[in-house]
């Protein structure tokens, strides 16, 4: 497997997520599409982290082993943070969707158009 395969999967997944987030009516599906986009970014981050030599190692040959581990794991750490924040985002999103449902009896974003100048 080469790096391109992973990048391609990431790009395709990101595009699917973007399409879903823009075109779907249901707010719940939009939130799912958002997760898809975050997952695509995670795949790209981890793949790049595995295949690309970290800058810290190129510039300073006398790096400590601590720094080596740190640089090698950057992409993974990035992915973990994205997953965590994404979870928080969806939790808040679902809470707001439930509130919208209580007010309007709908989860369709197309119906959430009370504000028109």
């Amino acid at each position, binding site marked *: 497997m080469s790096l391109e395969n992973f990048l391609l999967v990431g790009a395709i997944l990101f595009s699917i997520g973007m399409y879903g987030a823009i075109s779907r009516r249901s707010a719940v599906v939009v939130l799912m599409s958002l997760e898809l986009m975050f997952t695509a*970014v995670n795949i790209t981050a981890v793949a790049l982290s595995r295949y690309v030599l970290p800058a810290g190692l190129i510039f300073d040959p006398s790096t400590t082993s601590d720094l080596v581990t740190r*640089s090698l794991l950057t992409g993974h750490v990035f992915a973990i943070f994205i997953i965590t924040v994404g979870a928080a985002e969806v939790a808040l999103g679902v809470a707001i969707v439930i*509130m919208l449902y209580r007010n309007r009896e709908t989860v369709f974003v197309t119906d959430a158009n009370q*504000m028109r100048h």
Partner: protein
Amino acid sequence: MTMHDIYLLSPELSLAGLATLVLLVDLIVKRKSYLFVLTIVGLAVPLGFTLALLGSLDGASMMENEGVLRDTLVVDKFGLFFKLLLISAVAIVSLLSIDYVKRFEQFQSEFLVLLMYSATGMMLMASTKELITIYIALELSALPVAALAAFMRDGRSAESGLKFLILSGISSALLLYGMVLVFGLTGSTQLDDIAERIATLAIYTDQPFGSYALLMGVVLMVAGFGFKITAFPFQMWAPDVYEGAPTPVTAFLSVASKAAGFAVILRVFYSAFGIEELSIEWSAIFAVLAALSMTIGNLVAIAQRSMKRLLAYSTIAHAGYIMVGLAAVSTRAGSGDSSLGISAVLFYLSGYAAMNLAVFSAVIAISNRINSDAISDFAGMARRAPYLSAVLAFGIVSLTGIPPTVGFIAKVYVFGAAVDAGLEWLVIIGVLNSVIAAYYYLRVIKLMYLSEPPSTDSIESGIPLRLAMLVTSAGVLLFGLYPTGLLNFVKSAAQALLSTS
């Protein structure tokens, strides 16, 4: 994490601590107004720490641009400038919301707490120099705002919160994709390392930005940050969110969120993509976006009937004016003072904070009483509420850019920087836009002073609101008449940013 690190991070830590304290005290006290006193008095602590850090920087007892927590955060004058701005904005917004949030009854403290957590995220945004930290700070500032926008729990407010959350989610996904591509190209998330690595990369002259990967990364990052500053074409959310959200939240969004967005844009683009070949290219992107944001914001604002929507479009237009400074920054032709554009942006942001908060405090005072934010309901307001109308009119005059207000000086400074950078066409568009803006701004003043009021009941406002109006309009006038002090501070902040990169 040593004691010294804690000292360097003390503004953010103390603000987050204050928020938690307010949340706890809420469990004990019955009268919620004490919480506002606690918040506003407590904000003196982060303010004091920020001033102390500034003092240590000046007194050379601390290294310039010192990195904190493995160089993910940095303490420099640029970051401290934004911390001062954000703390003042939080203080004013808390003053504005005292009367407004009474309708939330037992949830008043949560309103304040979310406001302060969001401001903590914004303060971190102004001082990060590492991509992952930037993302975390950005989300820390955005998620509480989504909750705040939905705070009224009615249909409109829920709609506003949902729109903000979804669009901010999409924009942060774009931003993340851009960040990951830049990380993949350079192998580092540290802005300094990225700059170093880009300088050694082979630049393909037939590809924009030297390589398509970098082009994608930069464009996606512009999209992600563009959402924060409501730049065209990422401005669609602003009018709906601004209209549905509680008005103090709207004020906070339009001032603080925008300032933090510009802080992080300046930091990223100057530190990571600061080399000359790149800055010529990205400044062209910002120049085009600036022209479009100004024009679209101003043209659509003319047709608005709601005061909050009018201010939303005006905020888009002002994002355009500020981006003129962003575009002017990088061309580095002209007088050779490369910090001119940055300091113009910083000056405009502080002036905009003062004048926009003045306008919002008057609008909150009026529309909270008449229970409407339709512009037509402001007719004849000068007779019903002379002082409130005077503050509103003064703020609007400053937004238009008429002397002797800070809005005039800020515009002159931004356009001056653009001329210096050889962007005369952008200045012409900017000046034309100011004329369009004058039409719909002055129409509001005309309506307030020359129309017949529908009723003659006078409108009273509480002491906190009056205090907020006094402070903000004093700021508008003082910075307009004596801008030198602020200008010097802004210049040293801009130079601090350049010396980091």
